């Protein structure tokens, strides 16, 4: 089974790496990093902070954009081009295809992340002359990457039953909702109506809470969350990801082609 998953993964990787969009997104990310050098100079000596913030954000945005532009098309293009029929007529299960696609896109994003991170660290090193603080930055980028893999699964899930445009819209919406958990909590606290409170609480747990993967604020001030929170974050990612996988499998199994 692993070999088949790997075959799909490598194929997905190859296909997405060659997508021109990647080049555009990478240039965009490097532009942000580059502009941080300029903006740093007009920020009243806050340039180190600006470079770090912009760099981390650029890498994160790169990940998100790749998922939205490339991921949405992954499954849809296959169905449209009938390569999906081709694959499924071979001795391979739908779950293996899903796993393979997820793995392939994750590999692509990992590579792009690594490349942009190296450029980012390079720029930082030139500016501050030491490698201090980089391990913390790596941790922040790593957590962001884990979040990205969750969003990949979400994107695959949606692309299994809607067009790329709608799939992108849903994925982006879920991303925004995922980062608004504190707002939802605020609503829950201020609600007097028990029923509404209950409904919102359920929604709070069903929708992904993505802010926990964001330690970009902390690493800038050289602090990281305690080990327990990080461990819980990873557990959350594994559990939620597995749940998404099962839902995706369910959707794909029921679909008529």
């Amino acid at each position, binding site marked *: 089974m692993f070999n088949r998953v790997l075959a799909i993964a490598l194929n997905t990787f190859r296909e997405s790496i060659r997508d021109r969009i990647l080049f555009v997104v990478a240039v965009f990310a490097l532009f942000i990093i580059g502009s941080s050098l300029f903006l740093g100079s007009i*920020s009243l000596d806050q340039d180190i902070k600006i470079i770090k913030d912009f760099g981390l*954000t650029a890498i994160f945005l790169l990940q998100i954009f790749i998922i939205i532009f490339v991921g949405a098309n992954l499954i849809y293009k296959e169905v449209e081009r009938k390569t999906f029929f081709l694959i499924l007529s071979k001795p391979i299960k739908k779950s293996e295809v899903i796993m393979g696609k997820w793995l392939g896109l994750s590999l692509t994003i990992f590579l792009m992340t690594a490349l942009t991170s190296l450029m980012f660290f390079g720029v930082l090193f030139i500016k501050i002359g030491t490698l201090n603080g980089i391990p913390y930055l790596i941790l922040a980028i790593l957590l962001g990457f884990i979040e990205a893999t969750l969003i990949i699964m979400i994107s695959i899930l949606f692309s299994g039953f809607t067009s790329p445009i709608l799939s992108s819209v849903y994925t982006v919406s879920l991303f925004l909702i995922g980062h608004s958990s504190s707002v939802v909590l605020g609503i829950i606290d201020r609600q007097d109506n028990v029923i509404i409170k209950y409904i919102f609480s359920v929604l709070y747990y069903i929708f992904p809470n993505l802010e926990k993967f964001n330690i970009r604020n902390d690493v800038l001030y050289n602090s990281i969350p305690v080990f327990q929170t990080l461990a819980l974050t990873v557990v959350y990612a594994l559990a939620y990801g597995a749940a998404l996988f099962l839902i995706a499998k369910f959707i794909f199994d029921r679909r008529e082609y």
Partner: protein
Amino acid sequence: MRIFFRLSSVFQITALAVLFLVVFWSQTGYNHFFKDRRLHYPAQVFLAPATLVESSSFGFRNFLADVFWIQSVQYLIIEGLLKNSFMFQYLDIVTTLDPRFEYPYLFANLILPRKGSIDEARFLTDRGIEAIPSSWQIPFYLGVQYKVFSKDYEQALKYMNIAASKPGKPDYVDSLIASYTLRSGDQTSARELFDAIYKTTTNEFIKQSAKAWIQEIDHIGLIQSLVFGYKRLYGVYPQTIDDLITRKLIGKIPDDIKSFRFIINQETGMLIIE
């Protein structure tokens, strides 16, 4: 319409040129009026409230904080010091998004009191003190501004004391506290403070400075008692310090307090130092 197209092209081109001149003239005229307006009223009319920006930050808090920070620096240059400018709102947004970003708090304390809103500076400073417990600069700057701009020694002392409790504070914070105490009228406490500084500091300059302050306070004390003496002799308090000299209670005002402006409260006889 048809007639227009029949006319010679020369006429058409001339007409076009004239129209362009009118466009150019009216635009420059508009800009001219607009420029005058800009000096008096801020042109920017909308900035989202901090809570809204925070709710829409979606995991990009630091990045947005930086973006708004850079914007606020530019804004300062253009119209930040005008009466109704958005300077406070900008800094509110930046510090809401990234409470541990120290510089905006200092910036707020430097800029906002100057345009008349020290309360806004205090609002941000309180947030900064809570978010960055290790910073002595944040309360320190505000303390100084309270003394300089509103002569509110009570608030100045409050924030100076907060600054004094932080690690890494420079030695002269204690001296400032002592001098503010003096200015607020509490000479006894001020003398005690300066005495403590004199005994504990390792900085030679500060030691000498404290000694000088103590001498000044003693001299002020001397003047105060002379004022009371004057009352016992003549039944009223002197109008000014110079009366003490004219009535020969003292030869001259000691050098180190010569520059102080003293006001004698005619009911209580207490000296008030300007």
